[in-house]
């Protein structure tokens, strides 16, 4: 069965701190991996995606994620967070062809000015 785990439910950081949000998935085949962000009162938007190639993926707003196949992980990172990064972050995995697209339970990130 395809599943996604985000172990950090709520993360609180000060501005300029470094960020790493964990994402682990369970699926034996080829996967497509995504991180989405939902700012307060807004809809989901794509941060970055991985389909193939370089396992280090760069997205918008200074975010990046690294696909480690051996660990079934796709952790999200940002070297220095800003107050405007306060949002909820969702990791998602799609099987080959994105026939089934499964999301994690999300991580709420709060940045303290």
């Amino acid at each position, binding site marked *: 069965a395809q599943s996604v785990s985000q172990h950090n439910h709520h993360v609180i950081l000060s501005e300029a701190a470094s960020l790493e949000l964990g994402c682990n998935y369970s699926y034996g085949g080829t996967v*497509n991996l995504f991180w989405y962000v939902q700012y307060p009162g807004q*809809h*989901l938007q794509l941060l970055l995606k991985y389909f193939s190639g370089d396992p280090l993926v760069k997205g918008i707003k200074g975010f990046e994620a690294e696909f480690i196949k051996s660990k079934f992980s796709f952790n999200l990172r940002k070297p220095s967070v800003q107050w405007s990064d306060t949002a909820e972050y969702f990791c998602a995995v799609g099987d080959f062809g*994105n*026939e*089934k*697209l499964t*999301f994690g339970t999300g991580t709420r990130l709060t940045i303290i000015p």
Partner: protein
Amino acid sequence: SQTIHQWPATLVQPVGSPLSLECTVEGTSNPNLYWYRQAAGRGLQLLFYSVGIGQISSEVPQNLSASRPQDRQFILSSKKLLLSDSGFYLCACAIRNTEAFFGQGTRLTVV
């Protein structure tokens, strides 16, 4: 790029009444379509997905059903709503090996 139309934005229905939420897609053909329910602390729960007309896969056995009568139309239904069906429902669309795009969502309150 794809545009997803989802309506209504909000809906208040009594327990035991039927439900029909509609989602239509513009700007693409033969998309994969999804219905999710978003709840605080539970993320996006995949309810149904479809890879083609008449093809529906159910992820969570419950009081809901889905249908895809046309290539770009995806409908979420219930014959009799329960209180526990209240929530925020999102329709999404993805093409093979692209990201998913989401509709505006429907806030359903069952009273």
